[in-house]
């Protein structure tokens, strides 16, 4: 415990030396677009994983003291990823690029599927950013691309700059240690109250310069926010107060004070894909039979949402271990 107590404050001195900027909500309110995606693995046959990806983009306005849904867009696609080169070589260039760029990943199918999700999110964000001017375009997560080929961040940023859109990436949960603490940045900032933002030390951005498409901040968008959120600012970088004062209008929901309500809805919209798993499985069975696959093989290949087979032997062992306790 002594060691825990010793290290837990590590980084607080850096926090104290940072400049916290307080801000108020802007007088006018911009429209906001929130984009988020999710996927669900459905089938695993040998080295091939089939999943369904869903991305939702919701357009919101803040009017008459409430959040009004203006429009919504959806992208949904079945994606096949494989860890077998012979399969991947017959697929698209993007498949091949992602296959190469994820080779060091511990969980390659998931890493590839995540990149496909980013890719589709980027596609939809770009599309919706093109349709608007003077809006807020918010994506779930950071404005970072570790696989340039898989998202459209650069294009999106350019498009937003041209159209006067604020572009931000907001992370639901950030594990960064930009302030150099043993604890995460979010944990270190927890004691700070009020509506404010703080930019992370420049060293952190320098370190990730190749991947970042925005400046990295932590912000508290509501006085009762449960936490500080990492916000990557992609446009209007020279005026972060302007960005946060606009964004704060959408972070007033009693459901999630401090987190933009449109992003919560976009998330809810995207994860419905997991609730519809049964429906997709039924479709898979029909299609499998149509393609001449034995029913047993399809049923045997059905997976949990994260890609593990439902009938995997380790599941049996886990169950048996519990029963034997």
């Amino acid at each position, binding site marked *: 415990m002594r060691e825990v107590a010793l290290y837990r404050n590590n980084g607080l001195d850096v926090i104290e030396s940072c400049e916290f900027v307080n801000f108020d909500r802007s007088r006018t309110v911009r429209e906001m677009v929130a984009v988020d995606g999710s996927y669900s693995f459905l089938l695993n046959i040998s080295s091939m994983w089939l999943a369904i990806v869903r991305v*939702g983009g*919701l357009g*919101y306005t803040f009017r008459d*003291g*409430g*959040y*009004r*849904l203006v429009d*919504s867009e959806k992208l949904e696609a079945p994606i096949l990823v494989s860890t077998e080169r012979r399969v991947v070589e017959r697929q698209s260039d993007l498949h091949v690029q992602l296959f190469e760029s994820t080779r060091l990943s511990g969980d390659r199918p998931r890493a590839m599927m995540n990149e496909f999700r980013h890719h589709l999110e980027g596609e939809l964000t770009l599309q919706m950013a093109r349709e608007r001017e003077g809006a807020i375009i918010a994506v779930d997560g950071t404005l970072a691309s570790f696989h340039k080929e898989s998202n459209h961040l650069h294009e999106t940023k350019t498009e937003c700059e041209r159209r006067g859109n604020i572009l931000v990436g907001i992370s639901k949960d950030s594990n960064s240690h930009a302030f150099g603490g043993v604890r995460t940045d979010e944990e270190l900032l927890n004691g700070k109250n009020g509506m404010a933002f703080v930019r992370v030390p420049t060293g952190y951005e320098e370190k990730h310069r190749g991947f970042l498409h925005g400046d990295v901040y932590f912000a508290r968008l*509501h*006085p*009762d926010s449960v936490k500080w959120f990492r916000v990557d600012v992609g446009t209007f970088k020279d005026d972060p107060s302007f960005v946060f004062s606009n964004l704060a209008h959408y972070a*007033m*929901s*009693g*459901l999630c*004070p401090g987190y933009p*309500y449109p992003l919560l*809805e*976009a998330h*809810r*919209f995207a994860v419905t894909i997991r609730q519809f798993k049964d429906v997709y499985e039924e479709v898979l069975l029909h299609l499998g039979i149509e393609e001449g696959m034995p029913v047993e093989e399809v049923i045997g290949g059905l997976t949990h949402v994260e890609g593990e087979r439902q009938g995997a032997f380790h599941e049996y062992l886990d169950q048996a271990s519990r029963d034997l306790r």
Partner: protein
Amino acid sequence: MSEKIGEVISASVLGGLVAKLSLDNPEDLRIGYPVVVEGRTYYFYCMVHDIVNQSVDIAERLAGSRMRDSIVPLSETHEGFSGRIFYSKANLRPIQLIHRGTHKLSEPQTIPPYFSVARHASLRDVEKIYQRSDFSAPLGSIRGVERFMVHIDFSKLTEKPFGIFGRTGMGKSVLNKLVCIGILSREVGSVLIFDMHGEYGVYSRTDKTEGLKYYFPEKVKVFSLDPKNKEAVPFIIDPDEIRPEDIIVAFQDLNRNMVDAIYEINRSRKEDIVSAIRRADLEEWGHRVHPSVLSALKRRMGRMRRFSFVRRGGKDAFKQLISLIRERRSVVLDFGEYGTDQMVYLFVANVLTRRLFDMYTERNEEFPRLVLFLEEAHKFLAPNIASYTIFNKLARETRKFNLILALVDQRPAKIDDEVRSQLANRLILSLKEPSDLASALAGVPDRSVWESIVATIPARTVAMVGDAIRIPTVIDIMNYTPENVRENILDGGNMTSEDMDTIAQKVDKVFSF
């Protein structure tokens, strides 16, 4: 087309439908409202039987939390991708299917698909369901449908015994009056009313509203037990007409030994039963009736001394009454000063009904249909007393003889089960006691659904079930005014406003109102 209220999210033939509501405010919907669910083949005509805000963890967390400067996630402030964040649900009970093409009606034996639209029932919907006939008239409008007066078939209503149940102050008297007016206006029978509180004559003594004689001066005759009522025909009961059962029912508190004693005296009496009991000598009867029982019985008989309407030498009112009924006229028996005396009521009602029953069974072909309104019915039909009264028999055999019982009561649970099961139609106002709810609705399909509806309906609202109405229906009873009665029940054409004014003037002269 009426306003959409939501979409079906679950359904079961046995359990009913659940609709996710798209209303901003669940208060726009009420229990008992008719709702139409648009299936592919059928319109499902349903009744709302519950409205629910389900418990949600996040709502529990939010409730009572004092967050500064935040927006409460109500349906009017937060639009979600699939509608409202917090929404209400309505449980709907299908009552009738209407084929979308042929408009043919059928019983609900299937369910609509997911996401079928639920909407308020419109005038056009209800017009497809409720048909009119020459014998129908409205008692009020359907809850939740604008301007639709729902018709009751009074011919069917008066074919078999029926019940009017409800707590005090819920509108039983007004409903009674409307039912009587319906019966008389459609000429499906005559009525006999024991008017305890002077409500059914020309004007009600309690609230000054119009009575039956106001609307039907030629059809209705008022008799009175009260000698002070000079406008009515005096109602005299000859002591010779009194039977032991009349006394047993009237007293309500005689024990087994006293009842046996009455029958013992009745077997060998040489005069009327009341006098015979009063004069029963302890020495003479001591070997057959225990002296203490006889003494107690004689003391109790003292109660009947105040019955000034029981006397010899008066004109036999019963004969007059019978001849009026034969002429298809109706009778209101005003209790006057005896109005608060329950014993008088029980006694008179039993004597009169017993004699009517005898008359109807012996010479049935001579008499038209007569509906006998029996208030406080449980006093006659309680399991411990029913066997002594004629009402038990009457309720079972009534329709064979055209003498129909209308039971009016606030405690249906106290009425003998077997008698209650004879009721072909029930008009049920608000009830709260679970046993009364269960009894009033015994035998009704979906009883539990109707129990929840009846337990929550407001005053002047009646749930009607039976063969006199197409489907079980919740009706807002019409305001009891001469205009409403004339326009909706008397058809406005049967009686001109001049006629009504003439009647009113005559009445005013008589009563100097």
